[in-house]
């Protein structure tokens, strides 16, 4: 049986099993959207599914959806669904630009510029 590819060691949970086969979050989470665990999320973390516990722990410090995907070693689409579900439940808060299609406004660009100048 050891030659069966299904038995070869892999991730503890198959990516698409984690999200019940859904790969598209109902929310348009940007790849750079920032995720922070709420105090409610911290309280309930112990009751969450394993991968959501991992997200809750990671996002005590603000992290992007991209970082969550990389940290969990799952494709972006999977990370989006997991984060979207947690946001629905109030376990995490998500920060992103109000309009995903729009470039940052002047005020934000100015902040980026002054930040880069001081780097």
């Amino acid at each position, binding site marked *: 049986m050891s030659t069966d590819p299904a038995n070869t060691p892999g991730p503890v949970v198959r990516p698409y099993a984690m999200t019940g086969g859904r790969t598209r979050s109902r929310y348009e989470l940007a790849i750079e959207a920032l995720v922070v665990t709420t105090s409610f999320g911290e309280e309930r973390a112990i009751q969450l599914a394993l991968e959501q516990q991992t997200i809750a722990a990671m996002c005590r410090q603000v992290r992007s959806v991209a970082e969550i995907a990389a940290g969990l070693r799952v*494709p972006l689409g999977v990370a989006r669904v997991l984060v979207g579900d947690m946001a629905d439940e109030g376990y995490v808060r998500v920060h992103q630009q109000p309009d995903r299609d729009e470039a940052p406004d002047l005020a934000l660009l100015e902040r980026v510029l002054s930040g880069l100048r001081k780097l």
Partner: protein
Amino acid sequence: MDYRPSRPHTVGRQIASPAPSPVKIIIAGGFGAGKTTFVGTVSEIPPLTTEAALTSASLGIDDTSQVGAKTTTTVAMDFGRITLLDSVILYLFGTPGQDRFWFMWDELVLGAIGAIVLVDTRRLADSFPAVDYFEERDIPFLVAVNRFEGAREYRLDEVRNALDVDPRRPIIFCDARRRESVRQALVALVRHSLDVVTSEEAQRGLPRANTRVD
């Protein structure tokens, strides 16, 4: 689309600092032009890789000609992060090198500050597709010319002519291995984006409403 969690359970945890704002810059260019190096040079975390799973349906014409087979391909993107002032977090995304994954960029470039196209002067033509892509979509970008050992020394105006980019388009030399050089390239791009946004607003004759929400 604005995002609001359905249940605001965060009342007891007021944070004085402003809400974090994510921003991103795309690092593009041909194969081996220095994209990963560029990201790694300024990132505060070791560059990470994220994968997007794609099926052949979304790949369009598949040059491997696997007719009828629905294959899943993953596209890997490098990215890095720089925490700037005022809880502004800048992400740098290195585009996948392969041409056929451009459709990925469409999603990636949404809402970006702009792009830096890295050019290896030994293979100028490799950067044409990236230049075309950002020009066609009116995405602010600049051209950063990498000087690799053994490459003939080009002047910037020669590269500009070869790439046929607008005279107003910034074009600079950049060594992706040097932090200061990379920082300057980022500054130059953000200034260019500011110019673009400012002139767009002047054309429209009204300031863009500041609608930023968390």
